[in-house]
Every structure is written in structure tokens, then in C-alpha cells.
């Protein structure tokens, strides 16, 4: 554990107001660091500047662009760059922690502008794209300024080695495992229930696969219910569902963190039918910590999180028949389901913040060796130093 109290600057590339894995990770990390006595400032794009927690500094309103199969709310441009520079120069940071410095947002701008101890965390996992051959040489000088790189999963690490030819240390995303373990089972969510949490309108979350599997599942388990939580309008999804099965679906809307813990403790199965674009699968770790038995598609991130099927069942991605088979098998076999859930719960302790933060701390410790704090790169260039000396003389 770090004994010295540090001043840490964290940069979040996505809009703070929109829910997302990276934002949640940064919020939890910042709060954990503050609780440990460090001085933390988070720079993030934000729509509503009044609603920000005290440790977040707004960098301006985010711009929506399509990225990696979803809409990303990012921020760049000359005004944002000026704000980033101002934040760095007035912050007096010992260390900068940049999230997703390889996507066009303020993390990249900060990486470009700053000089000194920097750590980068890479969240995204993507297939090798041709466009990277064009972008690579531009990113390279910025990325190599990072003293240490963290990848949140093996999939993210492979993406990094493929795209930018640089290695990273794998440190998983953190969850507050205790908070989920303390969830209380709610009767309204118990029984033969299948849970799903996420922005179900996005195709890559794969709710459609579950919808397609339900006719088969309900034939073998007539009392099955599917509980869908998460923001979005259920009307479009409901149209897709067979009218006879429509009653089997319950849309709960957005649920709070406490409700989420209760939810995970109540349901029989948690199904994650995501079709891709997922790098870590924090929701699976949360489901495991809450004691739910998990069924997930066999995309690389989920496969490695579930230890190849040891801590939760896997089915072939986008294959609803296979999903139905796995679900029916588990709904019928109580012992098997409980064993899997127990193995999963033990697994989830690896992702607890106490464990994860310790690993991040040791990365910080190594990054700050030999550094004298973070400064703006341009202040150190010889001609600028020369010019500013002239000004001082006057």
C-alpha cells in the first residue's frame, strides 16, 4: 500500500452523466482513493455541470459520435484542449491516470499535453481494424509517454498488443463485492426467474437472443419469468415478443445500486447474451458477487471472466437454441445451479476493490519513481523556457 499521500488526476473520456462501465469504474476508483486519503481530481465531459460530485471537474459538453458499435459521448477540439491544459497546469498533480487514451477524447489530449508520471488504462476490446494502420503512427508518440499501461482484461490487452504493439499489465475492473454479498432476496423476483441488466435497446447487448430463446425455454419451464432492468423504452422489444409470451417479460426500468444487489441475490439465473464489444463484463462480476448463477455468451471477455465455464455457464454467442438448452438444464438441476453460483461467488472476491486497488497502487508507485510531478510538456521545451525567461526579466 502506498504510504505517501498523492495528488492524483484522473481523466474520464466519456460524458460523466451517461451511465457506462468506464464511468462507473472511474467513480468507484476515485471514491476509493479519496477514502484512502489521497487528493483526487477527475476531469470529465459533462452535460449538467451542477450535478457533478465535488471531485469532478467539467471539461465541457460531450459530442456524440458512433464508436465501436455504440454511441460514445466524447470531447475534443481546441476549447477542450485549452481546458485540459489549464486543468493540468493548475492541478499540481503527482500522477495522471488516463482512461482510454487511444480514443479521440480528452484522455488523449491530456496524454499529448502532459509530461511526467502517467498511467493509462485501456478498457476497450475490439477486433483488428484496418484504420489503425493510419491512426497508429499518430497515437504512438502519445501512448509511449505512459509510464505504465493497464488493461482491464486479457481481451483488452490483446487489442492493445495488436493495435499499438505495446504490452500492458492486466488488472480487472473493481466491484464492491461486499455490497453485493449483502443483497437481500426479494420475493417478487424469486422463482424461476431470469435476470438481464443493461441498455437493452442496443443490439450488442443481445436481448434479442434471449427473446428468441424464450419459446423453447417456456415449453420446459412454464412458470419462467424474464426480468429486464436498465434504461430504455420497452415498446420496440415488446413488439418482437410472441403475444402469448409477452406476460413472461417484466421491464423494471432503471434500478439503483442497492436494488441491483437485491436483484442479483433473488434471481435464479443471470443471463448475459451480449454479442460482442464487451471487454470485461463488470455486470457478470457483480452478478457473481450477488450470488446469482450466471449464463453468458462465449465472447472472449466473458469466457475469461468465467474461467472457461468453471464459474458460470457459457453458450455459443448469438445461438438462441444453445442458450435455451443451457438455461433449461440449469433451471431443472438445482444442485448444479447452486454449485455454479457458489464457485462464482468465490471467484468474485478477486474483483473486490480492496484487491484491485492494491494492484493499481503498486502500478502508481512504480510510475512515480524518478518523476517530479506532472507538468505541461510545452513548458519544458527549450524555446518556451527561453521566451518565458525573457518575460521574467521585463
Amino acid at each position, binding site marked *: 500500500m502506498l504510504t505517501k499521500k498523492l495528488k492524483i488526476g484522473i481523466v474520464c473520456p466519456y460524458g460523466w452523466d451517461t451511465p457506462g462501465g468506464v464511468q462507473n469504474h472511474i467513480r468507484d476508483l476515485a471514491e476509493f482513493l479519496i477514502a484512502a486519503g489521497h487528493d483526487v481530481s477527475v476531469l470529465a465531459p459533462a452535460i449538467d455541470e451542477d450535478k457533478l460530485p465535488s471531485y469532478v471537474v467539467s471539461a465541457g459538453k460531450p459530442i456524440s459520435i458512433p464508436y465501436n458499435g455504440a454511441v460514445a459521448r466524447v470531447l475534443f477540439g481546441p476549447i477542450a484542449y485549452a481546458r485540459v491544459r489549464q486543468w493540468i497546469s493548475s492541478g499540481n498533480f503527482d500522477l495522471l491516470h488516463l482512461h482510454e487514451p487511444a480514443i479521440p477524447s480528452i484522455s488523449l489530449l491530456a496524454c499529448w499535453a502532459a*509530461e511526467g508520471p502517467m498511467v493509462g488504462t485501456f478498457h476497450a476490446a475490439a477486433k483488428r481494424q484496418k484504420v489503425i494502420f493510419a491512426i497508429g503512427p499518430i497515437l504512438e*508518440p502519445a501512448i*509511449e*509517454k505512459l*509510464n*505504465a*499501461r493497464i488493461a482491464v482484461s486479457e481481451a483488452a490487452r490483446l487489442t492493445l498488443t495488436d493495435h499499438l*504493439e*505495446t*504490452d500492458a*499489465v492486466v488488472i480487472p475492473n473493481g466491484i464492491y463485492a461486499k455490497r453485493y454479498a449483502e443483497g437481500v432476496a426479494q420475493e417478487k423476483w424469486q422463482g424461476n426467474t431470469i435476470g438481464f441488466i443493461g441498455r437493452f435497446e442496443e443490439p450488442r447487448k443481445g436481448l434479442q437472443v434471449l427473446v428468441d430463446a424464450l419459446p423453447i425455454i417456456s415449453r420446459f419451464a412454464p412458470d419462467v419469468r424474464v426480468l429486464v432492468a436498465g434504461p430504455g423504452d420497452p415498446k420496440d422489444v415488446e413488439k418482437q415478443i410472441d403475444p402469448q409470451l409477452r406476460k413472461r417479460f417484466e421491464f423494471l426500468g432503471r434500478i439503483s445500486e442497492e436494488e441491483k444487489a437485491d436483484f442479483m441475490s433473488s434471481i435464479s439465473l443471470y443471463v448475459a447474451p451480449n454479442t460482442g464489444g464487451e471487454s470485461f463484463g463488470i455486470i457478470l462480476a457483480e452478478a457473481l458477487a450477488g450470488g446469482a448463477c450466471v449464463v453468458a455468451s462465449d465472447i472472449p471477455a466473458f469466457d475469461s471472466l468465467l474461467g472457461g465455464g468453471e464459474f458460470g455457464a457459457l453458450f455459443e454467442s448469438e445461438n438462441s437454441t444453445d442458450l435455451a438448452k443451457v438455461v433449461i438444464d440449469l433451471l431443472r438441476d438445482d444442485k448444479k445451479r447452486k454449485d455454479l453460483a457458489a464457485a462464482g461467488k468465490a471467484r468474485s472476491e478477486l474483483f473486490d476493490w480492496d484487491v484491485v486497488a492494491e494492484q493499481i497502487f*503498486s*502500478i502508481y*508507485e*512504480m510510475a512515480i*519513481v*524518478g*518523476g517530479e510531478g506532472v507538468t505541461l510538456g510545452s513548458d519544458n*521545451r527549450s524555446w518556451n523556457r527561453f521566451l518565458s525567461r525573457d518575460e521574467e526579466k521585463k
Partner: protein
Amino acid sequence: MRTWLTVGFFLLLALWYLSFSAARLDRLHHRVETSWANLDVLLQKRAAIALEIAHSDLADPASSMLLTGAAYQARDAEIKNRSMAESGLSGALGLLLSDGLAHATESEQALLQELSALTAKIRIAISIHTDAVSSTVMVRKKFVVRTFRLAGNAPLPVKYEFESDVL
């Protein structure tokens, strides 16, 4: 007039690129040095712990001798032979730990715990260092850097081939 302006513009651009590359290379060299210094400190600490273990009751006289020898070798080795010496130390520690854990007292347990925490850190430090070295080597191979001798007299960084799985 116009041609001269264009030529001047490209000349400035080339100069800027040279200065940019030199700054980049300088930063990489700095990173190699600091990451090595960091790794070196951790390895020295490990050798010290190994010596402490060698002098404790955990080690029988024979393995104590082996461990002491390996620890001193690791401390004195030149940078080029370092990885071999450290691997030797890892081997000696591994031999001892495989059968020494069962009958360890509390203070010895603490020592072993310190060792395993240190090992985890060393693993990270190695990956950070090798990464710095390989990006430096990559940049130094660039045409511009070689032709204009931007690296100056700085020696090519030594790649430290420390297999992290033997730790």
C-alpha cells in the same frame, strides 16, 4: 518567391519533426533509466530478503549456502549477466519454498509473505521495463533517428530477459 516560401515551410516542418523526434527519444531513454532503477531497487530488496531467509531457521545448511551464493551473485552481476544471476536466485528460492513452507514460524511466515508481495511487484516492474526498452529500440531503428544521429552517444538499452514465470 512562392517556391522559396514553400521550401522554407517544408524546411521548418522538417526541423520541427527532428526536434519532436529528439524530444520523444530523450523521453524514452529517461523512461528506460527510471524503470530500470525501479526494477534494480526491487531486485536488490529481493536479494536482501533471500539472505535473510538463508540466515533464518527456514533453511538447512546446504540450501542456506546455495541461497547465500545465489544472492551475492545476483547483487554483484553486471547488467548483461543480471538476468541469469537473478534466474539462479529464483531457482534457489523456489527449491527452498517448495518444501520449507510447512514448518515455518510466524516471523518466517511474514518473511515469506514479504517475498511473495515483492515478487508480484517485480513482475510488474519487469513488464514496464521491457516495454520501455522495446519502444526505445523501435524508435531508434527509425530512418530519421539513425540518419541524423538523434540518439547521440546514448547506448542502446539492454533488453532484460527475465522470464517472469520462474519468479
